[in-house]
């Protein structure tokens, strides 16, 4: 007799349902007409119990399914999708939560009329959701978000979202994918990183959350927006146009008053007539005011000023690179808007460094910068590596994150050891003087960093890698650090991505003799 026929003969509906409670539930739910139907279609091949075994070992768990087999009706996870948004340039942002405390999230698939996307569960950023935790009565990183860059235009419509769990269980949500502008989507994704409540130390966890996928995708997406923003900027010139001894390039964000403040302070310097000013406006809403102030400054101070307005926030790197392209000199001064000369004769002193110091000392250099309270805020930069204790191993380990530190932050203003002319691992982009040919040979600032941060250290490390370490010369300036622009949540999110990117790019180099205030490499030893 065939087993199925034999089992059928011995089949008892009530016994089968009692021994297989998941089948009873499925029958009750109408998925099967009867236990017999289930047995015939699935239970027989699975080897389900038809009757109580005659001998059961006492006080022991007896496995009735083969190893690795997980029987029972798959339970869809509790979940919600808060939003699926996409942008014209191809950014896709997903935000939601899922109860995967026991059954881990395998993937989230989006199905739209013209495209689909699959987010790997391990690549999604996970975060805590106090609202869900309260409802579930359990602490767990229920929340998630993801970001993908399709690099081509997307269309919207009904979006079917399928959350697949490790067990094979699935949940399905239908919603409308909402279109938003590219910059708005960038702001949304970065703001989400900034506002996320990560399970552990946010400094490390935020980077860990974006490292598998989101960070790289955001960098590519942002790079496109930056290139697009500076591809055809509005440019207006005030004053005369000629050849200059140097070009000050200033990237503005949100604070137009620094145009007239810098014009006033720099114009008091003898020799400034041989310098031009190039303002690159990364916040379009101040563009009209900047243009007006530039026009006034040309009148009042007799300065030659170019104002460039990109078609969006290009970020520090792309904005300065665009400014450099418009420069009418072979010496570029990258200057933050809140930087001002601290001494009379500053321009002459700068000219003297460029003209009289050996070429290697003048190719790229920075200067001591001072806080408004009189203390030093920068005398070069060095690198540190932060490591998160690896709790499982009981030791300090993990990937580690690079941190950029300033020499002399808060030091007395006349600390000779900090002010002396010397090579340094890096200098801040708040003030950087560079030979234009050298700057261009390095490819200018990296445009991968979002909005701004680390481009200066990145450029200095590339200069070092190309054989020319940067120098610090005693050309003192004021710098009201952090007061030259306005900070929004997306800037905090960008800082996380940039920290990850800088670490990915330079950790190995820094660990090879550039770590700490006294780096191992010979050229930086006192």
């Amino acid at each position, binding site marked *: 007799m065939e087993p199925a026929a034999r089992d059928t003969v011995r089949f008892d509906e009530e016994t089968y349902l009692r021994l297989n409670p998941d089948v009873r539930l499925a029958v009750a739910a109408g998925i099967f007409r009867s236990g017999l139907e289930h047995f015939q279609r699935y239970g027989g091949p699975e080897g389900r119990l038809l009757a109580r075994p005659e001998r059961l070992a006492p006080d022991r768990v007896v496995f009735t399914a083969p190893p690795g087999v997980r029987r029972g009706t798959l339970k869809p996870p509790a979940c919600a999708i808060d939003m699926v948004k996409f942008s014209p340039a191809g950014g896709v942002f997903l935000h939601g939560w899922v109860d995967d405390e026991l059954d881990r999230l395998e993937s989230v698939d989006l199905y739209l009329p013209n495209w689909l996307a699959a987010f790997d569960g391990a690549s999604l950023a996970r975060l805590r959701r106090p609202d869900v935790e309260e409802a579930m009565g359990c602490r767990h990183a229920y929340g998630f978000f993801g970001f993908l860059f399709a690099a081509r235009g997307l269309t919207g419509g009904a979006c079917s979202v399928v959350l697949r769990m490790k067990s094979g269980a699935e949940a399905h949500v239908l919603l409308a994918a909402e279109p938003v502008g590219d910059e708005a989507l960038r702001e949304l994704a970065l703001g989400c990183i900034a506002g996320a409540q990560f399970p552990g130390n946010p400094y490390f966890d935020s980077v860990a959350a974006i490292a598998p996928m989101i960070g790289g995708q955001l960098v590519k997406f942002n790079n496109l927006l930056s290139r697009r923003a500076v591809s055809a900027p509005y440019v207006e010139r005030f004053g*005369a146009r000629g050849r200059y001894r140097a070009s000050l390039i200033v990237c503005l964000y949100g604070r137009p*008053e620094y145009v*007239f*403040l810098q014009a*006033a*302070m720099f*114009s*008091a*310097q*003898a*020799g*400034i*007539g*041989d310098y031009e000013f190039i303002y690159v406006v990364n916040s379009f809403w101040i563009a009209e*005011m900047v243009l*007006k*102030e530039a*026009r*006034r400054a040309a*009148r*009042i*101070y*007799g*300065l030659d000023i170019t104002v460039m307005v990109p078609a969006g926030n290009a970020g520090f790197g792309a904005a300065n690179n665009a400014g450099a392209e418009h420069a009418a000199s072979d010496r570029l001064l990258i200057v933050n808007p*809140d930087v*001002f000369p601290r001494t009379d004769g500053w321009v002459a002193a700068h000219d003297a460094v460029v003209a009289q110091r050996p070429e290697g000392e003048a190719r790229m250099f920075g200067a001591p910068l001072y806080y*408004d*309270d009189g203390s030093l805020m920068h005398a070069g930069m060095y690198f540190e590596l932060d490591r998160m204790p690896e709790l499982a191993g009981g030791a300090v380990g993990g990937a580690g994150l690079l941190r950029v530190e300033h020499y002399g932050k808060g030091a007395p203003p006349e600390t000779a050891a900090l002010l002396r002319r010397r090579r340094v691992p890096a200098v801040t982009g708040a003030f950087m003087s560079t030979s234009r040919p050298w700057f261009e040979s390095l490819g200018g600032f990296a445009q991968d960093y979002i909005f701004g941060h680390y481009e200066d250290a990145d450029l200095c490390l590339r200069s070092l890698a190309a054989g020319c370490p940067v120098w610090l010369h005693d050309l003192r300036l*004021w710098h*009201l650090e952090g*007061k030259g622009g306005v900070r929004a949540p997306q800037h905090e999110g960008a800082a996380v991505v940039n920290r990850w990117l800088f670490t990915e790019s330079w950790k190995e180099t820094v660990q090879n003799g550039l770590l700490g205030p006294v780096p191992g490499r010979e050229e930086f030893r006192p």
Partner: protein
Amino acid sequence: MKVLLVSLYHPELVRGGAQTVAYELFRGLRELPEIEPVLLASADQTTPALFKSGARITGFDGRENEFLFLAQEYDHGWEKSGSALLAEAFEDFLRLIAPDVVHFHHFMTFGIDFLTLARRVLPAARIVFTAHEFLTICAADGHMLRRHEKALCGKASPVRCHQCLPERPPEQFFLREMWMKRHLQAVDAVTVPSRFMIRLLADWGLAGPKLTHVTNALAMPPAKPAPARARRNRFGFFGQLVDVKGLQILLRAVSLLRAEGFLDFRLEINGGNLNFASEECRGEIEAFLAEEQKRPAAKRLVQFNGGYHQDQLPALMARIDWCVVPSLWWEAFCLVLSEAWHCGRPAIATDAGGLAERVTDGKDGLLFPRGDERALAETMKRACTEAGLWDSLAAGIKEPARREEMAQGYLRVYRGGKADAKRRKESATFCEQKVAKKL
């Protein structure tokens, strides 16, 4: 010598000390045969009917050499205009008038950066700036009065200024100081109406040789001599009813005297602009006056007369014996004091700043500690009761400086010296020289 006087408002449009003095100087200079004065006074949206479409500088009411600067887009935070057109109009006006001297009686409504603009456009001109208060140093209305502790301020700093205006970060005051000093570099001379201001400005960092004292002065209508009276118990307050003028202190002193049963005196209040007082101060003054109105006429000690024109001064002064000046700030000069003295009325004044410099306690007036209503009440009681005091103090009053004296004082500043001309030449920046060459 052609002198361009740049004035905050025209005094016939908006009343105020700085514009009154600027206009008096304009009239004084006009009487000097070798001087051709030109007045450029600002107007703003307080007088919108005077604005003409597309115009930025116009004449004023058909008067010779009087012009209106139609101010717009003024930023009180940085003390500058945001209008490029106004800067261009001012530059064109300077070229057109081509003055030998540009004398700024204020920078408000024009912008502190117009000092630098004037220097760039007229490299050889002498540029003079008169400080009528401390607005270059102090962003809190230039009063140098610590708002949170109501003390006089002797030194500005980023943190101290932030304490007064906490909505602005310390760095902004650091920048403001650099900004102000940058533009004062363009000036050949800074004049102040009281000598004590020199110390504060020099401590702030303004070069000592630039600082000069030139008194303020007014041409006043003839005063009536004070008739002999048995009792000298009539007090008067003249001026703006704003916090720093201290009327509230005077009213508190009246309440103290009333409370102790001393009722043999009267106070007349003359002035306006109560709407510019703080809510707290306005409330206190209004509540006092309302309470006073409720009293039977015979029991009222205080009478409020409202605003006044200068022509009314002799009549108003004739109704009082003492002029009370309870100012809470430094009081750069105090024209009211000049007016009282012109009318032969001794003052009871705060012992600080310009008042302390001008009033000699016990000789031509009485001083009391700033903001101390009890001390003021005692001083008023003494003024009413001490026999011969008023006569002695009135006899000690010297006639205040006349307009001609002020004009001559400024003329000396305008003429400067050879050393000034040399310094001016040397201080021109590379940029300014380059621009001058282009022009």
